[in-house]
Protein backbone atom coordinates (compact mmCIF):
# COMPACT_ATOMS: atom_id res chain seq x y z
CA UNK A 1 0.00 0.00 0.00
CA UNK A 2 1.06 3.57 -0.57
CA UNK A 3 1.66 5.62 2.51
CA UNK A 4 3.75 8.59 3.38
CA UNK A 5 6.86 6.56 2.92
CA UNK A 6 5.82 5.34 -0.49
CA UNK A 7 5.30 1.91 0.89
CA UNK A 8 3.81 -0.15 -1.82
CA UNK A 9 5.43 -2.69 -3.96
CA UNK A 10 5.04 -4.76 -7.03
CA UNK A 11 3.38 -7.60 -5.27
CA UNK A 12 1.80 -5.54 -2.53
CA UNK A 13 -1.03 -4.07 -4.39
CA UNK A 14 0.26 -3.70 -7.92
CA UNK A 15 0.60 -6.50 -10.38
CA UNK A 16 4.24 -7.29 -10.87
CA UNK A 17 5.64 -7.55 -14.37
CA UNK A 18 9.21 -8.29 -15.25
CA UNK A 19 10.82 -5.49 -17.16
CA UNK A 20 12.66 -7.01 -20.06
CA UNK A 21 15.45 -4.50 -19.87
CA UNK A 22 17.28 -4.22 -23.12
CA UNK A 23 19.19 -1.13 -22.21
CA UNK A 24 22.76 -1.14 -21.16
CA UNK A 25 21.85 0.38 -17.83
CA UNK A 26 19.45 -2.45 -17.00
CA UNK A 27 21.92 -5.10 -18.04
CA UNK A 28 24.59 -3.47 -15.93
CA UNK A 29 22.31 -3.37 -12.89
CA UNK A 30 21.49 -7.02 -13.33
CA UNK A 31 25.13 -8.00 -13.73
CA UNK A 32 26.13 -6.10 -10.59
CA UNK A 33 23.40 -7.74 -8.54
CA UNK A 34 24.27 -11.17 -9.85
CA UNK A 35 27.93 -10.67 -9.08
CA UNK A 36 27.15 -9.32 -5.62
CA UNK A 37 25.00 -12.28 -4.69
CA UNK A 38 27.48 -14.75 -6.18
CA UNK A 39 30.30 -13.27 -4.07
CA UNK A 40 28.15 -13.25 -0.95
CA UNK A 41 27.13 -16.87 -1.46
CA UNK A 42 30.80 -17.80 -1.88
CA UNK A 43 31.56 -16.39 1.58
CA UNK A 44 28.92 -18.80 2.88
CA UNK A 45 30.55 -21.72 1.13
CA UNK A 46 28.00 -21.79 -1.69
CA UNK A 47 29.52 -21.63 -5.12
CA UNK A 48 26.84 -20.85 -7.64
CA UNK A 49 26.04 -19.21 -10.93
CA UNK A 50 23.62 -16.36 -10.48
CA UNK A 51 21.67 -14.74 -13.28
CA UNK A 52 19.27 -11.87 -12.68
CA UNK A 53 16.29 -11.97 -15.05
CA UNK A 54 14.85 -8.59 -14.32
CA UNK A 55 13.05 -6.42 -11.85
CA UNK A 56 9.43 -6.44 -10.84
CA UNK A 57 8.07 -3.15 -12.08
CA UNK A 58 5.49 -0.79 -10.58
CA UNK A 59 6.86 -1.22 -7.07
CA UNK A 60 7.07 1.87 -4.93
CA UNK A 61 9.13 0.70 -2.02
CA UNK A 62 11.35 -2.33 -1.96
CA UNK A 63 13.35 -3.58 -4.90
CA UNK A 64 12.22 -6.97 -6.13
CA UNK A 65 14.42 -8.85 -8.57
CA UNK A 66 13.83 -12.17 -10.26
CA UNK A 67 16.84 -14.43 -10.54
CA UNK A 68 18.07 -17.95 -11.07
CA UNK A 69 20.71 -19.60 -8.90
CA UNK A 70 22.55 -22.72 -9.99
CA UNK A 71 24.60 -24.09 -7.11
CA UNK A 72 27.75 -25.90 -8.14
CA UNK A 73 27.09 -29.58 -8.67
CA UNK A 74 23.36 -29.10 -9.01
CA UNK A 75 21.47 -29.64 -12.24
CA UNK A 76 18.36 -27.68 -11.44
CA UNK A 77 18.37 -23.91 -11.25
CA UNK A 78 16.65 -22.41 -8.25
CA UNK A 79 14.13 -19.80 -9.32
CA UNK A 80 14.34 -17.08 -6.70
CA UNK A 81 13.38 -13.55 -5.76
CA UNK A 82 15.78 -11.04 -4.25
CA UNK A 83 14.34 -8.25 -2.13
CA UNK A 84 16.30 -5.18 -1.16
CA UNK A 85 15.12 -2.19 0.82
CA UNK A 86 15.00 1.34 -0.42
CA UNK A 87 15.26 4.52 1.67
CA UNK A 88 11.46 4.65 1.55
CA UNK A 89 10.92 1.16 2.93
CA UNK A 90 13.68 1.17 5.52
CA UNK A 91 16.05 -1.69 6.18
CA UNK A 92 13.95 -3.11 9.05
CA UNK A 93 11.35 -4.35 6.61
CA UNK A 94 13.74 -6.96 5.26
CA UNK A 95 14.41 -8.45 8.68
CA UNK A 96 10.68 -8.57 9.40
CA UNK A 97 9.99 -10.34 6.12
CA UNK A 98 12.75 -12.81 6.80
CA UNK A 99 11.48 -13.52 10.31
CA UNK A 100 7.92 -13.94 9.07
CA UNK A 101 8.90 -16.31 6.27
CA UNK A 102 10.87 -18.38 8.75
CA UNK A 103 7.94 -18.39 11.16
CA UNK A 104 5.52 -19.80 8.60
CA UNK A 105 7.98 -22.13 6.90
CA UNK A 106 6.89 -25.30 8.69
CA UNK A 107 3.22 -24.39 8.65
CA UNK A 108 0.41 -24.85 6.14
CA UNK A 109 0.54 -21.19 5.21
CA UNK A 110 1.49 -20.98 1.54
CA UNK A 111 4.48 -18.67 1.41
CA UNK A 112 7.86 -18.53 -0.29
CA UNK A 113 10.63 -20.26 1.60
CA UNK A 114 13.51 -18.00 2.60
CA UNK A 115 16.70 -19.25 0.99
CA UNK A 116 19.44 -16.81 1.97
CA UNK A 117 19.45 -13.56 3.85
CA UNK A 118 21.64 -11.00 5.50
CA UNK A 119 20.20 -8.62 8.08
CA UNK A 120 23.33 -6.48 8.04
CA UNK A 121 24.74 -3.93 5.66
CA UNK A 122 28.06 -5.75 5.47
CA UNK A 123 27.51 -7.36 2.13
CA UNK A 124 28.04 -6.41 -1.53
CA UNK A 125 24.68 -4.59 -1.61
CA UNK A 126 25.45 -2.42 1.41
CA UNK A 127 21.98 -3.11 2.81
CA UNK A 128 20.01 -6.04 4.22
CA UNK A 129 18.49 -8.44 1.76
CA UNK A 130 16.52 -11.64 1.58
CA UNK A 131 16.40 -14.21 -1.21
CA UNK A 132 13.31 -16.39 -1.28
CA UNK A 133 12.01 -19.04 -3.60
CA UNK A 134 10.01 -17.80 -6.54
CA UNK A 135 6.53 -19.21 -6.62
CA UNK A 136 4.34 -19.65 -9.65
CA UNK A 137 1.08 -17.83 -10.08
CA UNK A 138 -0.45 -14.50 -10.90
CA UNK A 139 -1.04 -11.58 -8.57
CA UNK A 140 -4.48 -10.02 -9.10
CA UNK A 141 -4.82 -6.48 -7.83
CA UNK A 142 -8.07 -7.22 -6.02
CA UNK A 143 -10.81 -9.76 -5.46
CA UNK A 144 -13.00 -8.06 -8.05
CA UNK A 145 -10.62 -9.09 -10.84
CA UNK A 146 -11.33 -12.75 -10.25
CA UNK A 147 -14.32 -14.37 -11.94
CA UNK A 148 -16.64 -16.66 -10.07
CA UNK A 149 -16.52 -19.41 -8.94
CA UNK A 150 -12.76 -18.91 -8.72
CA UNK A 151 -13.18 -15.83 -6.56
CA UNK A 152 -15.12 -17.64 -3.84
CA UNK A 153 -12.77 -20.62 -3.94
CA UNK A 154 -9.77 -18.35 -3.47
CA UNK A 155 -11.52 -16.35 -0.75
CA UNK A 156 -12.11 -19.58 1.15
CA UNK A 157 -8.49 -20.56 0.59
CA UNK A 158 -7.43 -17.18 1.97
CA UNK A 159 -9.51 -17.78 5.08
CA UNK A 160 -7.93 -21.19 5.52
CA UNK A 161 -4.45 -19.70 5.15
CA UNK A 162 -5.34 -17.11 7.78
CA UNK A 163 -6.55 -19.82 10.14
CA UNK A 164 -3.22 -21.61 9.74
CA UNK A 165 -1.26 -18.38 10.23
CA UNK A 166 -3.11 -17.42 13.39
CA UNK A 167 -2.67 -20.93 14.77
CA UNK A 168 1.12 -20.61 14.84
CA UNK A 169 2.54 -20.18 18.33
CA UNK A 170 3.71 -16.57 18.19
CA UNK A 171 5.99 -16.91 21.19
CA UNK A 172 7.97 -19.62 19.44
CA UNK A 173 8.82 -17.43 16.46
CA UNK A 174 11.26 -14.57 15.84
CA UNK A 175 8.24 -12.30 15.32
CA UNK A 176 7.26 -12.34 18.97
CA UNK A 177 9.19 -9.12 19.57
CA UNK A 178 8.36 -7.43 16.26
CA UNK A 179 6.69 -4.06 16.52
CA UNK A 180 3.48 -3.52 14.56
CA UNK A 181 3.30 -0.79 11.97
CA UNK A 182 1.65 2.35 13.34
CA UNK A 183 -0.82 2.15 10.48
CA UNK A 184 -2.55 -0.94 11.88
CA UNK A 185 -3.73 0.39 15.22
CA UNK A 186 -5.73 3.37 16.38
CA UNK A 187 -3.05 5.04 18.48
CA UNK A 188 -0.53 4.81 15.67
CA UNK A 189 -2.94 6.14 13.09
CA UNK A 190 -4.06 8.98 15.35
CA UNK A 191 -0.44 10.00 15.71
CA UNK A 192 0.22 9.75 11.98
CA UNK A 193 -2.87 11.79 11.13
CA UNK A 194 -1.40 14.67 13.10
CA UNK A 195 0.55 15.89 10.10
CA UNK A 196 -2.57 16.07 7.94
CA UNK A 197 -4.65 18.33 10.10
CA UNK A 198 -7.15 19.73 9.61
CA UNK A 199 -8.58 16.33 8.78
CA UNK A 200 -11.64 15.81 6.59
CA UNK A 201 -14.65 16.13 8.87
CA UNK A 202 -15.86 12.56 8.32
CA UNK A 203 -12.44 11.24 9.22
CA UNK A 204 -12.18 13.40 12.33
CA UNK A 205 -15.58 12.13 13.48
CA UNK A 206 -14.55 8.55 12.78
CA UNK A 207 -11.47 8.88 14.97
CA UNK A 208 -13.63 10.13 17.83
CA UNK A 209 -16.03 7.21 17.34
CA UNK A 210 -13.13 4.76 17.32
CA UNK A 211 -11.63 6.21 20.50
CA UNK A 212 -14.94 6.13 22.34
CA UNK A 213 -15.87 2.64 21.20
CA UNK A 214 -12.51 0.94 21.46
CA UNK A 215 -13.13 -2.71 22.32
CA UNK A 216 -11.26 -4.23 25.27
CA UNK A 217 -7.75 -4.98 24.18
CA UNK A 218 -7.63 -8.61 23.18
CA UNK A 219 -5.26 -10.58 25.33
CA UNK A 220 -4.71 -13.09 22.58
CA UNK A 221 -2.04 -12.07 20.15
CA UNK A 222 -1.37 -13.99 16.99
CA UNK A 223 1.01 -13.55 14.08
CA UNK A 224 -0.79 -10.90 12.07
CA UNK A 225 0.31 -10.52 8.46
CA UNK A 226 -0.65 -6.86 8.61
CA UNK A 227 -1.53 -6.50 4.94
CA UNK A 228 -3.42 -9.71 4.24
CA UNK A 229 -5.48 -9.10 1.10
CA UNK A 230 -5.77 -10.06 -2.53
CA UNK A 231 -3.04 -7.99 -4.07
CA UNK A 232 -0.50 -9.63 -1.79
CA UNK A 233 -1.25 -13.17 -2.90
CA UNK A 234 -0.11 -15.31 -5.77
CA UNK A 235 -2.90 -17.44 -7.13
CA UNK A 236 -2.73 -20.48 -9.34
CA UNK A 237 -6.15 -21.59 -10.48
CA UNK A 238 -8.23 -21.95 -7.35
CA UNK A 239 -5.22 -22.27 -5.12
CA UNK A 240 -3.25 -19.64 -3.28
CA UNK A 241 0.27 -20.51 -4.23
CA UNK A 242 1.81 -17.95 -1.93
CA UNK A 243 1.08 -15.15 0.50
CA UNK A 244 3.56 -12.37 -0.15
CA UNK A 245 4.76 -9.11 1.33
CA UNK A 246 5.32 -9.98 4.95
CA UNK A 247 7.07 -6.75 5.90
CA UNK A 248 4.23 -5.70 8.20
CA UNK A 249 4.02 -9.00 10.05
CA UNK A 250 3.94 -8.59 13.81
CA UNK A 251 1.96 -9.63 16.88
CA UNK A 252 -1.62 -8.50 16.53
CA UNK A 253 -5.27 -9.35 16.86
CA UNK A 254 -7.05 -11.81 14.58
CA UNK A 255 -9.54 -9.21 13.41
CA UNK A 256 -6.74 -7.05 12.05
CA UNK A 257 -6.14 -9.57 9.29
CA UNK A 258 -9.68 -10.90 9.00
CA UNK A 259 -11.18 -7.44 8.52
CA UNK A 260 -8.45 -6.27 6.18
CA UNK A 261 -8.70 -9.30 3.94
CA UNK A 262 -11.92 -8.17 2.24
CA UNK A 263 -11.93 -4.44 2.89
CA UNK A 264 -12.58 -2.69 -0.43
CA UNK A 265 -9.24 -1.06 -1.10
CA UNK A 266 -10.48 0.08 -4.49
CA UNK A 267 -13.36 -1.97 -5.88
CA UNK A 268 -15.81 -3.97 -3.79
CA UNK A 269 -14.50 -7.51 -3.36
CA UNK A 270 -17.78 -9.15 -4.33
CA UNK A 271 -17.57 -11.97 -1.81
CA UNK A 272 -19.98 -13.28 0.83
CA UNK A 273 -18.08 -11.85 3.74
CA UNK A 274 -20.43 -13.20 6.41
CA UNK A 275 -20.02 -16.73 5.12
CA UNK A 276 -16.26 -16.29 5.06
CA UNK A 277 -16.19 -14.99 8.62
CA UNK A 278 -18.27 -18.00 9.68
CA UNK A 279 -15.76 -20.23 7.93
CA UNK A 280 -12.95 -18.57 9.90
CA UNK A 281 -14.87 -18.95 13.16
CA UNK A 282 -15.54 -22.63 12.59
CA UNK A 283 -12.01 -23.51 11.50
CA UNK A 284 -10.21 -21.35 14.03
CA UNK A 285 -12.56 -22.28 16.86
CA UNK A 286 -13.25 -18.67 17.77
CA UNK A 287 -16.23 -16.37 17.80
CA UNK A 288 -16.17 -12.96 16.14
CA UNK A 289 -18.00 -10.30 18.13
CA UNK A 290 -20.15 -8.17 15.77
CA UNK A 291 -19.34 -4.91 17.57
CA UNK A 292 -15.61 -5.65 17.44
CA UNK A 293 -15.96 -6.53 13.78
CA UNK A 294 -17.62 -3.17 13.04
CA UNK A 295 -14.96 -1.33 15.01
CA UNK A 296 -12.15 -3.02 13.14
CA UNK A 297 -13.86 -2.41 9.81
CA UNK A 298 -14.11 1.32 10.56
CA UNK A 299 -10.45 1.21 11.60
CA UNK A 300 -9.60 -0.45 8.29
CA UNK A 301 -11.30 2.35 6.33
CA UNK A 302 -9.47 4.86 8.48
CA UNK A 303 -6.21 3.18 7.57
CA UNK A 304 -7.11 3.39 3.87
CA UNK A 305 -7.84 7.09 4.32
CA UNK A 306 -4.38 7.53 5.80
CA UNK A 307 -2.79 5.88 2.79
CA UNK A 308 -4.70 8.20 0.46
CA UNK A 309 -3.63 11.31 2.36
CA UNK A 310 -0.05 10.14 2.75
CA UNK A 311 0.23 9.20 -0.89
CA UNK A 312 -1.08 12.57 -1.95
CA UNK A 313 1.31 14.34 0.41
CA UNK A 314 4.23 12.34 -0.90
CA UNK A 315 3.45 13.48 -4.43
CA UNK A 316 2.62 17.08 -3.51
CA UNK A 317 5.87 17.60 -1.61
CA UNK A 318 7.95 16.22 -4.44
CA UNK A 319 9.08 13.17 -2.50
CA UNK A 320 7.63 11.05 -5.26
CA UNK A 321 6.85 11.68 -8.89
CA UNK A 322 4.68 8.61 -9.16
CA UNK A 323 1.39 9.69 -10.67
CA UNK A 324 -0.42 6.82 -8.98
CA UNK A 325 0.19 8.60 -5.70
CA UNK A 326 -1.19 11.78 -7.22
CA UNK A 327 -4.34 9.84 -8.14
CA UNK A 328 -4.66 8.11 -4.79
CA UNK A 329 -6.34 11.19 -3.28
CA UNK A 330 -9.30 10.45 -5.55
CA UNK A 331 -9.95 7.31 -3.53
CA UNK A 332 -10.34 9.30 -0.32
CA UNK A 333 -14.00 10.33 -0.87
CA UNK A 334 -14.86 6.77 -1.89
CA UNK A 335 -13.25 5.36 1.25
CA UNK A 336 -14.85 7.91 3.55
CA UNK A 337 -18.26 7.26 2.02
CA UNK A 338 -17.83 3.57 2.71
CA UNK A 339 -16.66 4.39 6.23
CA UNK A 340 -19.71 6.54 6.83
CA UNK A 341 -21.98 3.79 5.49
CA UNK A 342 -20.38 1.34 7.92
CA UNK A 343 -20.95 3.69 10.83
CA UNK A 344 -24.56 4.10 9.74
CA UNK A 345 -25.06 0.35 9.48
CA UNK A 346 -25.76 0.66 5.78
CA UNK A 347 -24.53 -1.42 2.88
CA UNK A 348 -21.12 -0.44 1.55
CA UNK A 349 -21.04 0.43 -2.13
Amino acid at each position, binding site marked *: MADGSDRSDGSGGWTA*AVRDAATGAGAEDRAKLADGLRRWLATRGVRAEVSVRGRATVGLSQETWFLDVLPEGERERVAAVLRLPTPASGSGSIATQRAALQAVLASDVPAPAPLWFDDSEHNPFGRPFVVMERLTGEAPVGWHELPEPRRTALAEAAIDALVHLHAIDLAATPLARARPSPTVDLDGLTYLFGRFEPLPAVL*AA*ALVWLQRGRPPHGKEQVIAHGDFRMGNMLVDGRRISGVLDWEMAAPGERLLDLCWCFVPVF*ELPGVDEQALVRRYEQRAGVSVDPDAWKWHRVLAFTRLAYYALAGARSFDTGRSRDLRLAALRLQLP*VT*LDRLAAT*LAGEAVE
Partner: protein
Amino acid sequence: MSADPSPVAWPPVSPARLAESVAALAARVGEPEIRTQLHALGAVLANLGAERDGAGERALLVAEIEGRLQRGESVQPPLLRRLAALDRAAVQPVDWSAASSG
Protein backbone atom coordinates in the same frame (compact mmCIF):
# COMPACT_ATOMS: atom_id res chain seq x y z
CA MET B 1 -16.16 23.41 -16.39
CA SER B 2 -18.40 26.29 -15.42
CA ALA B 3 -18.85 29.08 -17.97
CA ASP B 4 -16.99 32.23 -17.00
CA PRO B 5 -17.75 35.26 -19.15
CA SER B 6 -14.50 37.04 -18.24
CA PRO B 7 -12.05 37.55 -21.15
CA VAL B 8 -9.22 35.04 -21.23
CA ALA B 9 -5.76 35.09 -22.71
CA TRP B 10 -6.37 31.82 -24.57
CA PRO B 11 -9.12 29.22 -24.91
CA PRO B 12 -9.22 27.08 -21.78
CA VAL B 13 -8.64 23.36 -22.21
CA SER B 14 -11.16 20.88 -20.96
CA PRO B 15 -9.81 18.51 -18.28
CA ALA B 16 -12.20 15.85 -19.58
CA ARG B 17 -10.76 16.22 -23.06
CA LEU B 18 -7.25 15.99 -21.69
CA ALA B 19 -8.17 12.86 -19.80
CA GLU B 20 -9.57 11.25 -22.95
CA SER B 21 -6.42 12.07 -24.87
CA VAL B 22 -4.16 10.69 -22.19
CA ALA B 23 -6.22 7.50 -22.05
CA ALA B 24 -5.84 7.14 -25.81
CA LEU B 25 -2.11 7.72 -25.46
CA ALA B 26 -1.89 5.06 -22.75
CA ALA B 27 -3.51 2.55 -25.07
CA ARG B 28 -0.70 3.09 -27.57
CA VAL B 29 2.14 2.69 -25.10
CA GLY B 30 3.82 -0.70 -24.86
CA GLU B 31 5.69 -0.24 -21.59
CA PRO B 32 3.38 -1.33 -18.71
CA GLU B 33 4.99 1.01 -16.22
CA ILE B 34 4.43 4.02 -18.48
CA ARG B 35 0.86 2.91 -19.20
CA THR B 36 0.01 2.82 -15.51
CA GLN B 37 1.42 6.30 -15.05
CA LEU B 38 -0.62 7.62 -17.97
CA HIS B 39 -3.82 6.02 -16.66
CA ALA B 40 -3.17 7.62 -13.29
CA LEU B 41 -2.54 10.97 -14.97
CA GLY B 42 -5.76 10.64 -16.94
CA ALA B 43 -7.70 10.06 -13.73
CA VAL B 44 -6.19 13.13 -12.14
CA LEU B 45 -6.98 15.24 -15.20
CA ALA B 46 -10.57 14.00 -15.36
CA ASN B 47 -11.08 15.22 -11.80
CA LEU B 48 -9.25 18.53 -11.95
CA GLY B 49 -11.19 21.14 -10.05
CA ALA B 50 -13.97 18.75 -9.11
CA GLU B 51 -12.89 18.79 -5.46
CA ARG B 52 -14.77 22.11 -5.22
CA ASP B 53 -18.08 20.78 -6.56
CA GLY B 54 -20.82 21.25 -4.00
CA ALA B 55 -18.72 23.75 -2.06
CA GLY B 56 -21.64 25.58 -0.52
CA GLU B 57 -23.41 22.54 0.87
CA ARG B 58 -20.08 21.04 1.92
CA ALA B 59 -19.19 24.09 3.97
CA LEU B 60 -22.47 23.89 5.87
CA LEU B 61 -22.12 20.18 6.60
CA VAL B 62 -18.48 20.50 7.64
CA ALA B 63 -19.31 23.40 9.92
CA GLU B 64 -22.07 21.42 11.61
CA ILE B 65 -19.91 18.34 12.08
CA GLU B 66 -16.88 20.24 13.31
CA GLY B 67 -19.04 22.29 15.65
CA ARG B 68 -20.43 19.15 17.23
CA LEU B 69 -16.97 17.64 17.58
CA GLN B 70 -15.62 20.76 19.22
CA ARG B 71 -18.50 20.77 21.71
CA GLY B 72 -17.92 17.12 22.48
CA GLU B 73 -21.28 16.15 21.04
CA SER B 74 -21.86 12.97 19.13
CA VAL B 75 -22.17 13.21 15.38
CA GLN B 76 -24.99 11.12 14.03
CA PRO B 77 -23.98 8.80 11.21
CA PRO B 78 -26.63 10.13 8.80
CA LEU B 79 -24.96 13.54 8.94
CA LEU B 80 -21.61 11.98 8.14
CA ARG B 81 -23.25 10.02 5.39
CA ARG B 82 -24.59 13.19 3.79
CA LEU B 83 -21.20 14.83 3.65
CA ALA B 84 -19.43 11.66 2.51
CA ALA B 85 -22.00 11.11 -0.25
CA LEU B 86 -21.61 14.72 -1.42
CA ASP B 87 -17.84 14.32 -1.63
CA ARG B 88 -18.08 11.00 -3.39
CA ALA B 89 -20.51 12.35 -5.95
CA ALA B 90 -17.88 14.87 -7.00
CA VAL B 91 -15.27 12.30 -8.01
CA GLN B 92 -15.15 10.44 -11.28
CA PRO B 93 -14.12 6.88 -10.42
CA VAL B 94 -10.58 5.80 -11.15
CA ASP B 95 -9.90 2.63 -13.09
CA TRP B 96 -7.41 1.27 -10.57
CA SER B 97 -6.83 -1.91 -12.51
CA ALA B 98 -5.52 0.18 -15.40
CA ALA B 99 -3.65 2.55 -13.11
CA SER B 100 -1.94 -0.31 -11.32
CA SER B 101 -1.32 -2.93 -13.95
CA GLY B 102 -1.56 -0.94 -17.14
